[in-house]
């Protein structure tokens, strides 16, 4: 009976193992680079919150405007998270005993403020301003997705530099008519915006547009 393993079997096996390893690594790498896998960048993961606030309910069903709560979105880098006064404007009369709202009521009574878990987390090396994006005609939905369909909030966009640049290179893809910016059902980049005027387009792809 001839030998089951030829003289080069070891070499073949080692090469094979190396090949499998290389394929796994390369595959992982390719997936990471071109796939922007959501597990690596936390995209599309719903984040739990101390108060299970539903945008789907408040925005989708009740039709609240984004700016009712995120009041400084047009005037500051930060969109702002509401103080309990804003919640209690309605909830002083509605669901006044709902246990789910207890942290808000506690904060309103002067207790510890509600510490919301951050969903959109940009690296510290980036300077981002809501004000300038909104005033340029970028819709909320361009980055945050359909808030009217999200029960808890998830990170709708990859927040990778390539994704930022894809808009900074072609800003019209994110723009909507000014009056539709806060419409959760707006459709950015539709044909109407093909001719949108974008000032300072050249500077948008300079490093110091965001990094300084």
């Amino acid at each position, binding site marked *: 009976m001839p030998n089951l393993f030829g003289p080069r079997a070891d070499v073949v096996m080692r090469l094979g193992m190396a090949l499998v390893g290389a394929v796994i690594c390369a595959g992982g790498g390719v997936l990471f680079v071109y796939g922007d896998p959501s597990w690596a960048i936390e995209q599309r993961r719903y984040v739990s919150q101390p108060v299970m606030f539903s945008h789907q309910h408040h925005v989708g069903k009740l039709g609240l405007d984004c700016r009712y709560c995120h009041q*400084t979105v047009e005037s500051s880098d930060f969109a702002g998270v509401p103080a309990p006064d804003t919640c209690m404007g309605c909830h002083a009369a509605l669901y006044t005993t709902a246990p789910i709202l207890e942290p808000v009521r506690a904060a309103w009574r002067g207790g510890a403020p509600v510490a919301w878990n951050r969903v959109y987390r940009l690296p510290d090396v980036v300077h981002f301003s809501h004000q300038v994006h909104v*005033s340029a005609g970028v819709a909320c939905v361009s980055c945050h997705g359909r808030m009217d369909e999200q029960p808890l909030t998830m990170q709708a966009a990859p927040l990778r530099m390539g994704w930022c640049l894809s808009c900074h290179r072609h800003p019209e893809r994110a723009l909507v008519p000014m009056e539709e910016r806060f419409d959760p059902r707006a459709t950015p980049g539709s044909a109407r915006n093909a001719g949108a005027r974008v000032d300072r387009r050249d500077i948008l792809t300079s490093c110091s547009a965001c*990094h300084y």
Partner: protein
Amino acid sequence: MGSRGAATSEKKDGWREFAPATLAPMSGLERRSFLKLMGASLALAGLGAGGCHSSTPEHIVPTTRKQNARVPGSTRWYATSVLRDGMALGVLARCDDGRPTKLEGNPDHPASLGATDAITQAELLGLYDPHRSAIVRRQGRASSWEVLEDFLRDRLAALEGKKGAGLHVVLGPTTSPTLKDLFELAATRFPQAGWHRHAPLDDASAREAMRRIFGRPLSTVVQPEMATVVVCLDCDLFTEGASGVCCADRFADARRKALSSGSLSPWLMVAEPSPTITGARADDRLAVRRTAVSLLARELLYRVAPGSSGVAEVTNVALVGEERAWLERAAARLLAAGSRALVVAGRAQPSGVHEAAMRINAALGSLGHTTRLIEPPEWLASRAVGLQPLASAIDSGAADTVVLAGVNPVFDALPELRIGERLRKLEGTFHFGLYRDETAEACRWHAPLAHDLESWGDARAPDGTAGVLQPLVEPLGNGRTLIWLMAMLAGLPGVPDLDRVREHWQRRWRTNLESTWRQSVGTGVIADTAAATVQEDPRQAAEASAEIAPRSGIEVVFDPDPFVLDGRHAHNAWLQELPRPLTRVVWGNVALMGPQLAQRLGVETCGVIRIEPADGHGDGAAVELPALVIPGVAEETIAVTIGHGRCAGSPVGIGRGVDVSSLRRISAQWLVGPVHVGVTGRSRRVVIPQGHETMAGRAIVREVAPGGVLARSGTIHLPIYEGAHGAAPQQWGMSIDLASCIGCGACVAACQAENNIPVVGPDQVERGREMHWIRVDRYFTESRRGAADIRFQPVPCMQCEDAPCELVCPTGATQHSADGLNDMNYARCIGTRYCSNNCPYKVRRFNFYLFAERGDEAAPRIQQMRTPRVTVRGRGVMEKCTYCVHRIRAAEMRARADNSMISDGAVRTACQQVCPTRAIVFGDVADPATLVSKAKRSGRSYSLLEELNTRPRTTYLADARAEPEKEGGGV
């Protein structure tokens, strides 16, 4: 982004430097993807390193109450003042989310005119200094305000029975009107109490001179902009006192206007023993022994007004050649200028010199033109005595309670007074101060004083204009104010300082109380409070004593350190590390001497010399400190600065430099001589960041005759890059006017404050690792009269259009932006330092360590001070001047939101905004109508190292000097 990729296209003329293959971009796999793949393999190797991201969730915590006026992330400005010897310098404080992060000058304030000096910039660090005193202490052990309050109240109540006999209060100079009201009440309560004023940098001789001339100690407001000739007799006009900033501003403004018509006016003449920034700016400078300035002053007075000198005949034999020639020129110019002449004398000069200066002004009719007389804004000087009576009272047992507030006489009073020794003998000693300093250690009680920027108060500018101080934060160190203390002394019930200040002013106004108050707080200036000009004729001069100072032996002259002053700022690391304008020394002091004296003594720079008073009295008074040899020091003169060698307060200042006060005498505070100077043969390091003293024959600081233009070089500009830079409509550029720059260093301090630049300490500076993004180079050039001329040149990043740094960065961390900036992307930098090696201007700075205070226990406090829009850089990262790109971007965003254009002057860099002489102009160079474009079209405009073809966006305007040397005439 595309400039590298586009480099393969050939030029039309067929010229190219490299074969196309070497310039081909990485095909297939883009560089970015390649780097990401590398990153990905690292992430995989780290087994789920990506997952670490979520392990530390970040929280967003809203306020518990809606604050409509407050927008998170927004910037607000508040007007207040910082005090220098009681005088106010108005500032606008930028507050980001409630934290003061930068001080700018207040354009409405007469002492600021929109600019500040380096010391004011560094007050911000002083505010946040984690080493500031924060605990009430009784005999060194922690106590509390309540205990101190009760103890002090009981003690004062007991003293009230004795009408205050035994109570002594020591204060620094103060102009606060509110404090004066309280003082009057306290003085009524304690008629027998001793009130003392301690001012190490006092202008006592000026007051004495004014008393002799006008019968009372009037103050002067100098107006150099009205003069055609300014003669400074040992007076550093641009830094002395709180009026230096506005003097420099007005002087530079007048010079610029005159220069546009081709003349140098006001013509600046300076006679001084050791070089100052005023002397460096002078058109005619004389290095003269401090003792000989009296002779100059008297002779000048005799020449200008023979009748009023009080000296029948001046023994001018005592003047030697160069001095005589300078005197002739000065006298001729003064007589020609008439009422547009200005003569000023410095604090180090005796009252006779001040008297002579004022009598020259009076005789020429310039009183009311170039100098105004006002009632002194400082009220304490006329109501208090000095420290000598306190010393006697302690010795005689008459003093039992001593309250010292805001002063540190144990360190900065003359050692002859032995204040520390005397205070230690007493039981009831109370010290209120920013630091637990030498005086705090000598006192039974120490309590923290609040910083100016965290207190309510009021103060007057040198011209008498009152302004309100408002707190920018709650006291960080649990400190209380002088107003609180004085109210305590006056026996008033506890009322917030705000109410006291407001009530004081509202009592004066009578109508529109609330609106006037709001307006005063809002602008930082109380309207119509400037002191009126006093019309007073000088009295006939008394017979002046004709004593002539001996001109023998080596004399030592003392001056306050340019930044640390009398030691009060020794704990401020920004100021310690700021190169002194003339010597470039950091973190210490030196014995400054000229080359001739050094040669005769046989000592070189860094060689330690031993200075002993020749009169023999004062054992152990000898001082040893390293020499620094520079030109421009008067013959037989050694110049030293006081304020160093602190022994308590904060680790930042303790043991930096040498305390030279043991050489000083009450009779001769600013001058001692003759002295014995011995050479020890040892050497000690002198930390100087600048390695060059001359321009080595190159045209670095260029100069022209007034009205002249620079010869154009024949440099041909061949772009290294292909493809046009600057596609954006706005293109940023800067022009620095060397004819205006006085080399004060304010730009360096402002940049440090604005751009979160760390301090590295003397060891690192010695290794050339200082981090300042803008530096001020100082050069000595040969003057036409054999002495040295001094030139300054601020050097920020040149923002080259063809930047050598960009070509060599392997990671593309430094790139060109579309609006012409040389961007630095910290996140990409891997620290090869190639860019710095390739930078011909040496303006890039590398973080050899984690210099930013991110790791130590001081971090939380210091982080509050950081400009939030500027990244704090970590270890291993290159950094450099960005033209304050965060300010540009903020202006762009504002313009975007308002749908407007960025107007000229809307973006100002930190160095530009702080500059007292407005030497720096910044703006859009693509728009021919902007100030910077106009400056760049001037015949004086030139690029630094133009021959390197880097096409800098930062250009210079050549200095304008009379009878220019040959072009680029380095020594």
